[in-house]
């Protein structure tokens, strides 16, 4: 037995797989590609951010403009996360647990923000709320500021990130079906009890997954926010917008310092995503047997 195994391992060509040369070429190409397009830029961001030392890095971050951008980004992300969590849950619940006419249309509609260019999404809000827009004059009369202010930025972000939670939940909830809910109802549970005691625990990892992706996009969104923000320094610049402005003004250390925060967010998201995917897979296997 042992001899046989050794012979197998030492065989120059193994019929079960590709020749070694081809394997190495394919793997090498993949590694090269990832290095040039993913690893190198990531390293460069941090290298550039720290090019004048740690002190310069932190003083760039702690500039009033930088702090304002970080604060605004966090506020907008918090608003859009909360609302999209609620909307996403409601949409997924409605689509997967009930039958109604126009259901497939609603599913298509949920995907719309993914298929529209973010710039168009931003313009859409300008058309709605701008001075020449649909609600513009009315808002002006009542002294409500939406465009070039936090509400506009939040609205644009909500629009762009709307699909994440719903998209993460719909397939999961479709697969789980409505049987457990029916069991809960027949045992006397109310609608809310059914949701909080049966549905939500079953989809919690999916919810976290959707929230995570939604957050990454909300903090990183550039196009739509750029159109509605107005770029008022220290007021309506989110982190991605500030990076661009600083870069254009040749303040490379400051630009890359802010950019490094976004890059770190991406890395954390990636790790969290991997962990969540493992949990989702486990949940899947449990329900499969």
């Amino acid at each position: 037995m042992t001899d046989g195994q050794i012979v197998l391992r030492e065989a120059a060509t193994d019929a079960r797989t590709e020749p070694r040369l081809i394997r190495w070429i394919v793997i090498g190409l993949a590694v090269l590609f990832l290095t040039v397009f993913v690893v190198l830029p990531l390293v460069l961001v941090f290298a550039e951010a720290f090019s004048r030392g740690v002190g310069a890095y932190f003083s760039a971050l702690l500039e009033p403009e930088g702090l304002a951008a970080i604060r605004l980004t966090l506020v907008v992300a918090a608003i859009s996360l909360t609302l999209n969590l609620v909307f996403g849950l409601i949409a997924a619940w409605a689509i997967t647990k009930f039958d109604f006419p126009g259901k497939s249309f609603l599913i298509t509609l949920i995907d719309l923000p993914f298929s529209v260019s973010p710039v168009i999404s931003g313009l859409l809000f300008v058309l709605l709320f701008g001075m020449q827009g649909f609600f513009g004059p009315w808002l002006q009369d009542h002294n409500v500021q939406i465009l070039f202010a936090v509400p506009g930025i939040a609205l644009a972000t909500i629009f762009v990130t709307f699909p994440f939670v719903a998209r993460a939940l719909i397939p999961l909830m479709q697969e789980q079906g409505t049987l457990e809910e029916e069991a809960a109802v027949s045992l006397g549970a109310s609608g809310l009890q059914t949701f909080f005691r049966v549905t939500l625990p079953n989809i919690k990892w999916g919810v976290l997954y959707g929230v995570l992706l939604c957050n990454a996009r909300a903090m990183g969104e550039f196009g739509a926010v750029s159109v509605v923000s107005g770029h008022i320094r220290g007021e309506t610049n989110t982190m991605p917008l500030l990076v661009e402005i600083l870069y254009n003004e040749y303040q490379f250390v400051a630009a890359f310092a802010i950019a490094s925060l976004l890059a770190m967010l991406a890395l954390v998201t990636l790790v969290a995503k991997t962990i969540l995917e493992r949990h989702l897979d486990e949940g899947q296997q449990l329900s499969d047997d």
Partner: protein
Amino acid sequence: MTIELKNLVKKFGAFAALDGVDLKIEDGELLALLGPSGSGKTTLLRIIAGLDWPDAGDVSFDGENALARGAGERHVGFVFQHYALFRHMTVFENVAFGLRVQPRAIRKDEAGIRARVKELLDLVQLDWLANRYPSQLSGGQRQRIALARALAIEPRILLLDEPFGALDAKVRKELRRWLRTLHEEINVTSVFVTHDQEEALEVANRVVVMDKGKIEQIGTPGEVYDRPATAFVHSFIGESIVLPVNVSDGRVWVGDQALNIKPNGAAPGPSQLFVRRHDMQVAPPGGGLRGSVRYVRTFGAIQRADIALSAGDGETLIEIDTPRDRQLKLGDVVELQPTRFRIFSA
């Protein structure tokens, strides 16, 4: 509790799942809804539970309109075909669920809930599984936990949808006997759905045979087996020999051969003769159905033979069960005589 269903109609698009069903379920009985898939039996069960609503008709529990109440207010225990246990809860919490969601005013305290769950787990003989999750249980165990969960709310009626459908043959047989004993013990009005005639005949006090959204026959297991009301029931329950016959002049004809039996009041015209396999016996020559033996095998006390009948146009192959005292041999020409039979017009 008695349940009365009047003229229930339920349509899914153009398909009529229930097409005018009337049924009275008596207090304390164990009733089987038996039929092929698509016969409407599960729909009927879901309507009683309040998980589906009829397009027309009435459902009343003890004379009270049940359609005015939602599923949660009917105090109905429902056991799903695939158990539908809450996968993120332990066995204990699954069984406790119905007690925990009760309105505060009537909810038991924690000690009361624990005691009741323990009692139910003892009843289904699975108290040692209290801390497991559903994914760690076998099919038969899941089924019993589902039953314990349904019983926790002290249901006025217990509804079971294909309770043994997803289990293997041996476990199924065990659970059947166990369900019967359990029913005798707790004596709650119970209705179960099945497509397995053996299950229905063995477990139920009364059997409702359904086909295409209608009730074909209601009766005890003995009645539906021995005196099927329609051709459908005869062919669905037990195995039957079916022969096309013609009733005329007070006689029964197979092709041009008159049988030595009376039509028993069957209307003249083209009809179908139904005979159980063990009711078709080899008779002394004269007036029987002539056929030749094609194949013989023995099972314990009986021998099963394929007989090719030559009456009528062409050849009809039937299978009969006869005692082994008269040994049949390949190629024998025999005459057959139905000892018990039913005739339904075609």
